[in-house]
Each structure stands twice: as structure tokens, then as C-alpha cells.
């Protein structure tokens, strides 16, 4: 039996397949469709200190082989997450990774303190969500700000720290290096690419927020390239994501250098996608006579 076990820094995962933040709610929404026990980790919707309302509708619009979203980071806030959402997830034998966002370094620090105390398995910093004007865009696209944030948050966290990088920058490896020097244990990439769709009849943008984040198969080649670059230039543990629909897609990310992968938009199309990829990876390893998935990380022949 080949091994699917993998590691993201100190964090051990039963298998390398997780769910991408914002596409799997708080786990509960999909619990009747997927056996959560079979996932390497569940990454929950981004949490802020206080509940957030989010943007007016339309918040989602389909695009060729993908979609734009401008949810505006609607979430229940830290308190309700700890009291109402986390206990549910704790019933399952899977890792719980909490994605967080804030408007200031102080917000992030407080979130990390509370979540470390609550004993979540890891924290993922969303520094790249392009939707809300103050939702972190400054951190994700300004290297100095990012370094300052990661450094402060690192001190406040006693659990593994993952920095989710913005793809909306010129040199993503530079930002990965900054995050690494500031003490992040791993990076996840990519978050959504900023996009826009216009209705030619009304001549208005199709999203109330005007722009939104592009996800789905349309962004996969960009994501694979970024994972490959960051792996080659930094060697950091990477959680790769962006348009993963099938086992083959997940393997592309692993070969490019990802130690784990996250399934996002595919959940909407097929709630069973993540578990099917776990099974598919196992079959692939057996067939290729590879004893551990870790042997494939970054194994692309260039």
C-alpha cells in the first residue's frame, strides 16, 4: 500500500488533499455529501475578529471554465466560529486549518492568539483576498508589509503558520521568500486572480463589486507555474491550488513542487471531488510503483 502521508512543516497530514478556503464553508455544509474523515485537512472560510456582512449580490458569475466571486469575505466572526463551527469539525478525524483575515497587524495577531489557544491544527493567513478594499490587499502585494505581518503573527502563534500568497503580483517567489524569512512554515498558492466581466446589454459589470476573484480550471496553468517557481526558488513547503478538478490536476501541482493540494471550485461541481482525488492518488502511486507521494513532490522532469 503506497503512503499518502505528507508534511507541511510540522503539520502531518494523512493525505495531501484538503479543501480550499471559502469553497467548503465550515465543513458542515458538505458533511452530508463527503466523508470528512477521508480528507487530509479541512480549510475553513476566512475568519475575521468580528462577523462580516460581505458584498451585495451578484456575488458570483460564471466565466469560461471558471468563475468570478466577490463574496466580500462574509463570515461569522471569531467568536461564533469557536463556539458554533469548530466543535462540529472536531468530531471528525481530520486536520482543521483556519484561514484568517484582518484589517491590521493587530487583528491578525489577536486572531492567531485565540486560534492557537483553541488548538486548531494550523492557521492560514489570507493576505491576498482581492475582494474587500481593506481585506488584506495591502499585505499581499507589498513585500515590506507582508514581512512585518508574518513576523508579528509568527510570534503570536503556537501552531504551524501558512501564508496564502496573492498571485496578483509580479514576482510571487519574492513574496514567498519574504514570508519564509519572517517565519512562515509554508505557503499556499494560488488565491484567486482579479478579474472582471461586463454585461454588454446593460453595460454594467456583472458583479456588484465590479471586480472579483477568478477561480477554477481557467487559472490552473498559472497556478502550476507559480508553484513550480516558488518551489524551485525557495524550497518552502507548498499547498498548491487553482482549478484542481481531478487526480491528474492534483498530480501536476505535486510534480511542480506542492507537498499538498487544495480543492476549491471543484467542490461546487462535484462535492465528492476531494475524496475522489485521494483515491485517485493512491491508485496512481500503486500503478507507478511509487511508495510515497512525497517522492513525487517537485519531481517534474525539466
Amino acid at each position, binding site marked *: 500500500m503506497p503512503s499518502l502521508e505528507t508534511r507541511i512543516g510540522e503539520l502531518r497530514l494523512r493525505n495531501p488533499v484538503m479543501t480550499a478556503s*471559502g*469553497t*467548503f*464553508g465550515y465543513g458542515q*455544509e*458538505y458533511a*452530508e*455529501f*463527503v*466523508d470528512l474523515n477521508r480528507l487530509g485537512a479541512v480549510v475553513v*472560510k476566512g475568519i475575521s475578529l468580528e462577523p462580516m*456582512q*460581505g458584498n*451585495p*449580490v*451578484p*456575488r*458570483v*458569475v*460564471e466565466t*469560461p*471554465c*471558471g*468563475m468570478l*466571486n466577490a*463574496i466580500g469575505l*462574509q463570515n461569522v466572526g471569531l467568536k461564533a466560529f469557536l463556539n458554533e463551527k469548530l466543535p462540529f469539525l472536531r468530531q471528525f478525524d481530520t486536520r482543521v486549518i483556519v484561514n484568517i483575515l484582518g484589517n491590521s497587524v493587530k487583528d491578525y495577531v489577536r486572531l492567531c492568539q485565540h486560534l492557537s489557544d483553541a488548538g486548531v491544527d494550523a492557521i492560514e493567513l489570507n493576505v491576498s483576498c482581492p475582494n474587500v478594499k481593506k481585506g488584506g490587499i495591502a499585505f499581499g502585494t507589498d513585500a515590506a508589509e507582508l514581512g512585518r505581518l508574518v513576523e508579528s503573527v509568527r510570534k503570536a502563534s503556537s501552531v504551524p503558520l501558512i501564508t496564502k500568497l496573492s498571485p496578483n503580483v509580479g514576482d510571487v517567489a519574492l513574496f514567498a521568500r519574504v514570508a519564509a524569512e519572517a517565519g512562515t512554515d509554508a505557503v499556499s498558492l494560488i488565491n484567486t486572480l482579479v478579474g472582471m466581466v461586463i454585461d454588454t446589454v446593460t453595460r454594467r459589470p456583472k458583479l456588484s463589486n465590479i471586480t472579483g476573484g477568478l477561480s*477554477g*480550471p481557467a487559472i490552473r496553468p498559472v497556478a502550476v507555474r507559480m508553484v513550480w517557481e516558488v518551489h524551485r526558488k525557495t524550497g518552502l513547503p507548498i499547498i498548491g491550488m487553482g482549478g484542481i*478538478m481531478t487526480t491528474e490536476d492534483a498530480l501536476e501541482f505535486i510534480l511542480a513542487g506542492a507537498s499538498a493540494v487544495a480543492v476549491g*471550485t471543484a*467542490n*461546487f*461541481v*462535484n*462535492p*465528492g471531488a476531494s475524496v475522489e482525488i485521494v483515491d485517485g492518488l493512491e491508485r496512481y502511486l500503486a500503478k507507478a510503483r511509487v511508495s510515497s507521494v512525497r517522492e513525487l513532490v517537485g519531481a517534474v522532469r525539466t
Partner: protein
Amino acid sequence: MSRLFKVPLLSNTEVADGHRLASFALPRETRAPQAGQFFMVGIPGLQDPLLKRPFSLHRMTDEGRVEILYRIRGKGTRLLAERTTGDVIEVLGPLGKPFPLDSTGRPVLVGGGLGAVPLVQLALSLAGRSPRIFLGARAGAELLSLDWFRKADPETVVSTENGEAGLKGFVTEPFRAYLEDSGPTCTVYACGPTPMLAAVSAICRDRGIPGYVSLEEHMACGVGACMGCVTETVEGYKSVCREGPVFPMEQVRFSFPGGSPERGGP
């Protein structure tokens, strides 16, 4: 465990210009769909269109098949319309909260245009409680399920904006007049364009009559995970797919991009 099914289309027939009635059977272990619930439907294996499309339960047939009634609008519905009996579709559901059936007083159903689809099964489920039904449409051709409604209420009141069938004008007028005359308590169920729902809700609120509306919003996941399909309620944004699509009228905060609710129609 997944409620995603690959099932063959058992029918997919044009019932009016650009409108089709399709049916499929659900695996036996599936919960029986109820009036007001919906399905996310897609063509297996396609990445463009990527997302599934939401369609309400139109009716459960005597053989226990799910029937949906849809209008061809864009790429997704066009592709669905091209499938024929035996072609496999992918279905997620049944999803969402159904209409509560245990309401007080006489059920009064108000439907507008194709938005009335979810009221068909509701009317049939409530047939034993002699529901009163009011149907509105822009034109006579849009009154697609009239025969089913008449089975539940032979005196179903029809109004069209162009006067082609029934009364001329908005459906809210005969509905308002009915409430004026009918002393006894009732519960209102409304489904249709947002301005109509807002008008119906306002009429009910003024008279202290309880009721439910079924809403539509653009969706990605259909299960409450993405928060893409929210509607504004007195308790903030709620997901239409999971916390709805059926909401108690007094919870919904209607906004009126197309005019004021007093206008009374779509």
C-alpha cells in the same frame, strides 16, 4: 453518501416555445423531494459551462419521477435542451428548505410567470385543503402549468398584463381583492419576480397575514458553502440555497432596483 447522481433523462420535451419539461428518477435511497426544493443540474464532464444550474421541483409524477420545467436562457439551459431521453445528466439534490405545509387557515398561492414553477407541486400537495390560487403572467403563453393548478383549485384566478388570458393587469389586484373579502385566516405562498414578491409581502404585512416567498439568486455551490447566493433579511444576509429558497415573508428585505413595491407587479 454524496447526493450527486448521474441519471438518465427520462424525458425532455418542448412544452412551449423555448420551454421544456424534463424528468428523471432519483436513486431509491434519496429523500423524497418536497415542494419548494430544487436541484443543481449539469452535463457530466463539461468544464464550460462549469457550474451546475438550479431548477425547482415542478412536480413529482405518479411514478415518483422528478419533473423540472425550464426556459432556455443561455449556454447551460441550451445544452440541457439538446439532450434527449437516455442521455445522462448530473444532479445534486434535493436541496434547500421546502414550503412548510402545516400552515394555518386556507392556503393562498400567488405565482408570477415561470417563477410559479415551485407552486405546482405545492398546489398538488395542498389540494386536500382547497387552496386558492392566483396566477399572473405577462402573456397567455407563459401560463404553462395552468392545468395542474386547476386540479388543485378549479377556480384558479388568472391575470395577464396584456389581457390575453383572464383578467388584465397584475396578479396582485385580484389577490388583494380576495383578501379584502375573505374574512378567515389564511397563509400565503408566493413565488415569482421580485417586485411581485415585494408587493405580495407588503399586502400581507398590512393585513397581518403570514406567508412564505421562494427566492432565486445566482448560485455556485447550491449547498450553503460559498455564500454566493445571499439575500438580505432582517437578520442580515442569508444563503438562498441553504437557508432558503423559501423564507417567511416578514424576514426578507426586498430592494427595488426596478421601482417601488407599490407599483405592484413585475
